[in-house]
């Protein structure tokens, strides 16, 4: 004759499931906690918003490369704009070559406004928002991406 509790979950199985659940949730919690621990909350990186100089430091019609900031400042007829010098393929520094930009790592080529002309780069170069500080300095915000229509007009 079978015991009655065989029809449902036995006490032994119930405790087994409780034990397994406890073990899995403990290990899972530890894993998730450890993974979250790996994501830094504070970064000691250079600020994304910084001054690049007075508007008069950038001659009209010229492209100026700010090596340490890894960007180009272009003073065009219709205003200022800033293009990143970081190749969108694998992060190498691109160089100005005549009327376009070239990447030394894998040969991607970009137009004067940063559109991909040839090579493996998947996206155009990034454009950053430019601002004018209270002291009249040009500022670039690398944390704020803008499209190709962006221009900063500076009234003398």
């Amino acid at each position, binding site marked *: 004759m079978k015991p009655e509790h065989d029809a449902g979950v036995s006490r032994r199985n119930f405790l087994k499931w409780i034990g397994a659940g406890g073990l899995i949730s403990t290990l899972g919690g530890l894993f998730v906690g450890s993974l979250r621990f790996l994501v830094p909350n504070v970064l000691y990186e250079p600020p994304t918003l910084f001054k690049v100089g007075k508007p008069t430091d950038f001659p009209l019609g010229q492209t100026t490369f700010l090596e340490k900031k*890894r960007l180009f400042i272009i003073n065009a007829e219709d205003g200022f704009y800033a293009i990143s010098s970081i190749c969108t393929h694998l992060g190498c520094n691109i160089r100005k070559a005549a009327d376009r930009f070239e990447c030394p790592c894998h040969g991607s080529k970009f137009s004067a406004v940063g559109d991909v002309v040839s090579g493996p780069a998947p996206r155009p170069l990034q454009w950053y928002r430019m601002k004018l500080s209270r002291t009249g300095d040009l500022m670039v915000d690398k944390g704020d991406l803008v499209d190709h229509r962006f221009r900063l007009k500076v009234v003398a």
Partner: protein
Amino acid sequence: MKKASDFLKGCWYSVFRTGWPQSAKEQSLVMTSSLFLHLHPVKVKKRTLAFRLTLGLGMISFFLFVCLVVTGILLMLYYTPYPAAAYRSMKDLEFAVSFGWILRNMHRWAAHGMVLIVILHLCRVFYTGSYKKPREFNWAVGVFLLILTLGLSFTGYLLPWDQLAYWAITVGSTIASYVPVVGDKIRYLLVGGNVIGEGTLLRFYVLHCFILPFLMVLLISVHFWRIRKDGGLASPEESPLPENVLEGDSGQFPPSPKTYGLMALSEGGRHRKAQWGDPENEVFSWPHLLYRELLLFMIVSAGLMLISILFQAPLEEMANPTRTPNPAKAPWYFLGLQELVHYSALLGGVLIPAALVLFLVALPYLDRNPQGAGVWFHPARRQGLVLFTVCLALLTVLTLIGTFFRGPNWALVWPW
């Protein structure tokens, strides 16, 4: 005098349970009474000692790993994992620390050598069909060991903090960001922020010196242990394992390939045929196997030292995030992938490597042909051999193109 001699003998016996083996019994005892020697079986098949079967590649890669651990620990005593200080450590090792240059060279060349030898070992195991049943799992462990070897080499690449290091890691970590959906998060975790800096160096240092070596030791142990449990090296004479091993009768011991697996015999279970452990074809590991290993270790360490004296490990100028070298190249073993990345980062950096790893892990489970285990280029495996060789040749050609035929702006150039 006799008391002193007895005392010394007692001390010796407290550590070593046997003296220098003189008899067959002592040759057995010496292997089973030592933790380290017990990694070996008491006896090995004569044919597995033949150099032409294995070319010693597995042991050479293990010995290189030992050299890497020893030199790595010594280098750590002078290394500071902080950007400018890290580069200064390299200069100190090269010019100020006694024998620092040779230790750094040995570490560098052993790392490159280990990558090469582990790849060759994988090829040897494939071409001799040694991954076939019952060694499927050990093959998979071997594939993970290859990945760990590449990971160790890649993380170590950043530590000198020179231009070569900085830009190889820039390229490598950006490739990680091409993984669909979570790519950017993976890069952020790996780099420890948005830009490669002190956080990245510390992460790579911890990965290189603690996490990956720990995993490596763990998997090497499993790899060695499985070689023994799977009956030593693959041999065409061994009888196949009985079917449905896991579904044996209740209370029955699983079949054992060990020559002294009496547990299986005593239970009358399904076990391999008796001729499989034929004593006529076996010799004691002491001294036949151990002397060969010792000789190989001496050759590896002497060769490594010679190379390290003759060839200086590269060290370029300090890392400069604003100046990309032209061309910026990854380490040689990633140049095949970099060549593919030149066409498409997603394809070359993510999809093809992932497919390759999956293919390699699944290989012994996909290849159902039981013939050809333990024989070089067995004719019954023609299709598999051709497919593998084509893949290998493609990867080699891509690596050669990336190494010798790519110049500034990744344009095709002649190497001369």
